[in-house]
Structures are given as structure tokens and as C-alpha cells.
């Protein structure tokens, strides 16, 4: 039972953390990334398709190529957000929302195309795949490769954000872009960097969500709200990598309740419908954000298109 709880908590925790870290890079550079949900969908779709294509190759090849492709697909999709909000100075929230809606539609069309036989578009957007190459058993606990990828990316994210030139400049652009520009920092370039990193991490996060636990996914459902939950994790985690990790773990406990409710005796006795458990993380996010968001400190310049001449 504990092993099961741990498995799901780690699984969801890594997903939420990866996507929230992505959101963090974008927002720290000054661009609100509400498109995380859509980015996850695209990342998941491309990752799954590549995995299907690579059946029969060595496990290492399958994992590395499909994860990389999922990330790159998310990055490419995030490019749309970057272009709209940085070059066209579009409203970032509206742009992000549009991308979310678009992503599910794109994913359905492509998934149906993949399923179709003989030139006729299939009715089902449900893709089947095998996750064998991604899952291992260590000391009786089933873990998947994303645990290691996640921890590695967490450490890398922390170092990049706080210990490198890129991180210092990126954070300056999210707080006071005029100041950054006055010392020669390329604000638009930094914001592109932030959004594209968020696309990469978000794409991997989407893939990590659907792949290791089940062997089929219906893209009609998009990514089931995980992207929005990741936004809550990012805010609860105060745009800080380590706090985001802890926040992700906190939320994933609620998320995994649904998966373990049947097998935990005292929860099973309650006989709550599954929907209650599915609601848990969202209810938790409402409660937590209501209690903490007053104190939260978002990057000061996020959401504001950068204009050079502004006083």
C-alpha cells in the first residue's frame, strides 16, 4: 500500500514539478504562461507517437529520443506564445488561453489521423502504446524514468536560475526589464529563452503524465487539467525551484488519493465516489491559494509587454 501511494505521489509530483518549473522560467522572464496545459498536450502527443514508432529499438534509445521529442514539441508550441506575446505584444492571458483550446483540437486531429486506416479519419483519438522501456522496479517500488529526469532537471533549473549569468538576467527581465535593458541585457531574447524553456519542460511534463501509468490515452481529454494544477503549484511554490518541488509533492498526495482509495482500507470504507478524489487536488489548490496568495510575490513585470521608451 505504501509502495503504491509512493509510486503515484512520485509520478504526479514529478509531472507537476516539471511543468511548474517550466512556468517558473517563463514567468521569471516576464511572460505569463497560462498555455502550460496546451503545451503538455502537444508534448504528450508527440512523445507518444515517437514511442510508438520506436517500438523494438533499445530501451535507452526509446526513452531518450521520445523524451527529447516531447520537449521539443512543447518548445515549438511555446514559440507561438512567445511570438504572440513578445513580438506582437498580445495579451498574454488571452494568447495562452487560445493556445490551450487549440492544443486539444490539434491533438485530436493528429491522434485520429494516426489511428486511421486507409485514408479515412478514425473516430477515436485514443492512442495505445507500450511503456515498458520507461518503468523499472527498485526495491519493490515501481519507478519510472521520469523520476530521475525530473530530479536532474530540478537541480539543473536551480543552478541555471540562481548560479548562472542567464538566470540572473532572466530574473531581472521579469522584475524590471528597463533596468535589464539599461545594462545591455537583451530583454526580448531573455523572454524568448524563458518561454522556450517552459515549452521544453512542459512538453516533457505532459509526456510524463500519460506515459508511465497507463498504456492508452484518449486525446479528446487533453491533459485533464494538469497544466492548470501546475500553475497552482508554481504560485504556491513562489516561483522558486525548491519550493515548487515541495508544492508539487503536496498536491500530488491529493492527486494520488484517487488512485489508491480502493486499496487503502480506511479510505475504501468511506465509499466515496471516485469523483470526490479526482476533485481533491483542485479543491486543495483553491484552499491553498486563497490562504497564501495574498503574500505571494509574482515577478513584478510579468504580463506587461516590454516597451523601450516607457518611463
Amino acid at each position: 500500500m505504501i509502495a503504491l501511494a509512493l509510486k503515484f505521489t512520485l509520478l504526479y509530483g514529478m509531472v507537476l514539478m516539471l511543468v511548474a518549473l517550466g512556468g517558473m522560467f517563463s514567468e521569471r522572464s516576464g511572460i505569463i504562461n497560462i498555455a502550460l496545459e496546451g503545451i503538455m498536450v502537444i508534448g504528450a502527443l508527440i512523445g507518444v507517437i515517437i514511442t510508438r514508432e520506436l517500438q523494438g529499438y533499445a530501451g535507452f534509445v526509446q526513452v531518450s529520443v521520445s523524451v527529447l521529442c516531447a520537449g521539443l514539441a512543447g518548445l515549438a508550441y511555446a514559440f507561438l506564445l512567445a511570438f504572440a506575446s513578445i513580438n506582437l505584444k498580445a495579451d498574454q492571458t488571452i494568447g495562452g488561453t487560445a493556445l490551450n483550446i487549440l492544443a486539444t483540437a490539434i491533438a485530436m486531429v493528429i491522434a485520429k489521423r494516426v489511428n486511421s486506416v486507409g485514408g479515412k479519419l478514425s473516430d477515436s483519438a485514443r492512442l495505445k502504446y507500450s511503456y515498458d522501456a520507461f518503468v523499472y522496479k527498485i526495491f519493490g517500488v515501481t519507478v519510472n524514468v521520469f523520476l530521475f529526469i525530473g530530479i536532474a532537471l530540478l537541480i539543473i533549473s536551480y543552478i541555471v536560475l540562481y548560479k548562472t549569468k542567464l538566470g540572473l538576467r532572466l530574473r531581472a527581465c521579469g522584475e524590471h526589464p528597463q533596468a535589464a535593458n539599461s545594462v545591455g541585457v537583451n530583454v526580448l531574447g531573455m523572454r524568448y529563452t524563458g518561454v522556450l524553456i517552459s515549452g521544453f519542460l512542459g512538453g516533457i511534463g505532459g509526456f510524463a503524465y500519460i506515459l508511465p501509468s497507463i498504456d492508452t490515452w484518449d486525446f479528446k481529454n487533453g491533459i485533464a487539467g494538469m497544466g492548470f494544477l501546475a500553475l497552482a503549484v508554481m504560485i504556491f511554490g513562489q516561483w522558486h525551484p525548491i519550493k515548487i518541488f515541495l508544492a508539487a509533492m503536496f498536491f500530488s498526495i491529493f492527486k494520488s488519493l484517487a488512485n489508491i482509495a480502493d486499496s487503502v482500507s480506511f479510505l475504501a470504507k468511506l465509499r466515496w465516489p471516485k469523483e470526490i478524489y479526482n476533485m481533491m487536488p483542485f479543491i486543495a489548490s483553491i484552499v491553498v491559494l486563497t490562504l497564501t496568495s495574498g503574500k505571494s510575490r509574482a515577478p513584478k513585470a510579468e504580463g506587461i509587454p516590454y516597451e523601450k521608451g516607457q518611463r
Partner: protein
Amino acid sequence: MDDYVIEMLHITKTFPGIRANDDVTLQLKRGEIHALLGENGAGKSTLMSVLFGLYQPDSGEIRKDGKTVHIKDPNDANALHIGMVHQHFKLVDVFSVLDNIILGAETTKYGLLKKDEARRKVMELSQRYGLMVDPDALVEDISVGMQQRVEILKMLYRDNDILILDEPTAVLTPQEIDELMEIMRGFAREGKSILFITHKLNEIMAVSDRCSVLRKGKYIGTVETKDTTKEELSRMMVGRDVSFTVDKAPCKPGDTVLSVQGLTVPSKLHSNNAVKGVSFDVHAGEIVCLAGIEGNGQSDLVLALTGLEKASAGKIEFCGKDITHSPIRKRALAGMSHIPEDRHKHGLVLDYSLENNMSLQRYFEPEFESLGFIKQKKVHSYAEKLISEYDVRSAEGPYTIARAMSGGNQQKAIVGRELDRRTKLLVAVQPTRGLDVGAIESIHKEIIAARDAGTAVLLMSLELEEVMSLSDRILVMYEGEIVGEFDPQKVTVQELGLYMAGAARQDISAASDAAARGGIANA
């Protein structure tokens, strides 16, 4: 031939609707302190932004050491060792002092930031030039004076030897200004060249070697400071003679308009009260000035009077009515006008047009509204009227977005809005902060005209010169209490200074009684 490090020749820069620089030439010698003088909106900041690479000139040429250079962005400027301290500091609040200094000029090892070396260099510069900073403090936690030292260190860290300072003294206390001037002289002795934007004539006379003057975007001339006078400079700047003294008729106090009794206001910064049981009256037709060193409760007192903060005890009577707990709108409708201390925070909606800002106090009156709709034409014509009466200059008239206007014109817009109502009491807080002599003169005139028309004026100012020349009565505040009441005719600046510093105080009840009898108490 003179040894010019920087020459800006025939620079022209046009913005939509405004020619900010029109054939301007500026030549900077090695090791000199060169003042750039001009009214608000004369194009000084634009010219400096061109030199710093933030704007590209439409025409003209920039030379460094006699060679033509193209400065496309701040990196180019930096490569030519040109550094700039902007009027509004370009510092990231949540970064440490050290991070702010190294931002954009970071040193790395294996891709990681190498801060030890940077810290050593910053501390060495800090000691060498007497620029004391705490490298680990967050910028949001340090004083404005220290923030400016951080900005100067940013330039020194980049080995800049052409230093542009955009209105560096506007935010400093008199002591900090003296320190800054000493530091500037030190730079000049080392052969660094300083371009120093200001509209304060005293500072130019005190510290600069030469001075160039701009007026409405045009170059007027360059003079040697030692061969000129304040009068000549101000004539060059404004284009006419400016009087430094304020002409006003003797004060004829009327009825009590504002009566404050035992007012206590809690502090936002600490658990003590910011204002401790203060009592005073302001009569129709007199200017009462609250003097004091910043942070002695004057601002909190004004916030409580205008309704922006709540008083915890005491009573405010306005025209005989108790308004201690009245909402702001009610106070305004009763005839209280307020020129706020922070014009960006409390004076204007920065992203609104000028016309909408000007009708902020009146848009709900029948003249400007019917059936819940705003009469845009009326608002527009009203704004045009105020703009011409108060000489508010902007690029697109009533349609200009307030944020895009210069500080002086933003202030004139507020003064116009606040005075053009049936005002019984004007509460003016530092109404001329950061303005040039021309704008100061016109705002002073407006305030005196209001007084002569029977308005009671409560003025809060940190500038002693302004306190002495404008007021009919001076109240000195120290640590939340009124410690002295004076007639400006019978007191010296030095004497006021003693009270402001807390070194002397009057018996206030006696003073108030004396004032009530029409006499003036002396310590």
C-alpha cells in the same frame, strides 16, 4: 584644440508630435563637470538617452575622442566607457546590491557566476570613493541615497570614465547632496568626465566647470560657470527673467477653515504613532507651512487630513463640520483640494489620458455626466481650458497619456485640476518637488493667487527656501509633534533647523494661544 572626449554634433530627435532635440550640440572635455541645464521637457533626458544608446538620433553625429561612433544600444555605450545613472533608478528591487551591480557585466567560471571577485572589486571601489553600500542587502531595503551609490558603483564597476548623472540630487537630502558633490569632484580630479543633468542653479554654481543650456529642444549655449550668474543661467533656460523671490501681499487671515485637535495617526513603519496628538488651525487666506525633516510625521498627518489614512484619535473640523471619519469624496466635495506627495501613486492615473485625469474630481457632476454616461466633449473642452490656463505641455494635448508626460507637466496638470474647483482648503505636499525654476515660479504664483482669493492653504515642504518664501505661518514638526510655530519674517533658516533637528522646542500651548491672539510666539 580642446581635448573633447565626447562631442554630440547637431543631434536631432523627433518623437510623434514633439521635436525633443533640434540641432543640439554638446561638447564634453576630459576631466570636467559639465552641467546640462533646461526646464522640464527641454530635451535633456532625451539627449542623454541618445548618448547612452537608448534612442537613435534622426540626424547628427556623436564623436568619442574625435572619432565618429555609432551607439546603437547600452552595450555600445558601455564599450565606449559611457555610463549613466537614470533619474528613476534602474535597479531590480528584489536583487541584492551586488547582483544589481554585476547584472549585464557578469564574470563566470565554467558557466557559473563568480561573485567573489566581483565583491572584492565592488568593496574596493566603494572604499576608494567613499560610496558606502552593503553588498548583500536587497535594494528594496536600502535608502534612496544608498540606491544612488549603487547606481554610481555600477558605472565604476564597468570602468566607465564618462559618467552621465540624470537629476542626481532630486531625491537626496542636503547632506547627501554635499557628499555627492564631493564624490563628483573626486571623479573629475581623476580625469573622469561628468555630465550632470539638473535644473537646480545652486548646484550648477557649486560644482560644475561649464554649463550647457537647452530650451524647448533647442541648444541655447554653453557658458563657463565661473563667468556666469544664476540670473543669466535662468534667463538662458526660461527665455525671460525669473524672479527668485515670491511677491505676495500681506496675509489677511479670515475664518478658521481647518481645525485639527489632538490628532493621532498610527505609523505604518513601527508600533509608535507617527502623529502624536497634534492641534492647529488654518484660516482662510493664509498659507500655513508644515516644515520638518522627512519622516517626522508630516506625510502621515496629511494622509489623515485628506482621508487616505485613518486617524486613531483626535478630531478634524473642516468649515465647522467634523470630517474625522468622512470618506475622501465627501471631503473633496466639501472643498478640500489635495496636491499629493506622490503624484504617480495618488495624483494621476498614469495610463489614462490627460483629459480623463483632469476630470477625475468632477466627472460625476451634472456638467460632465448625464444618465451615467460621461460627456466626452465636455471633458475634452474642460481639459483644453485647464491646459491653456496652467500651461501644461504635452505631445498630444488632452489625449496624451499621463505616463508619457514630463514630471513638471504632470504636476501642473494636478495643480490645475485641484485649484479649478470651489476650493476652501488646499493641502499641497511638496508641490514643486523635482521641478525647474519656471514651473516652480508658476506653481508658487497659483498657490498665492488661491490664498489671495480666500483659500486656506496647508503646505508641506522639505525645501526650507520654499517654506520661508511662501508661508505666512510655519509649524515645525519633529517626531510626530509640533515643536514650534513661527512667523517667517521673524525667524532664520538656522533657527528653524534647530527645531527641525529636535534641538529646541517651544511650549506649544502658549504658542497656540499667542497665535490665536494674532501675535507670534518666539522661543
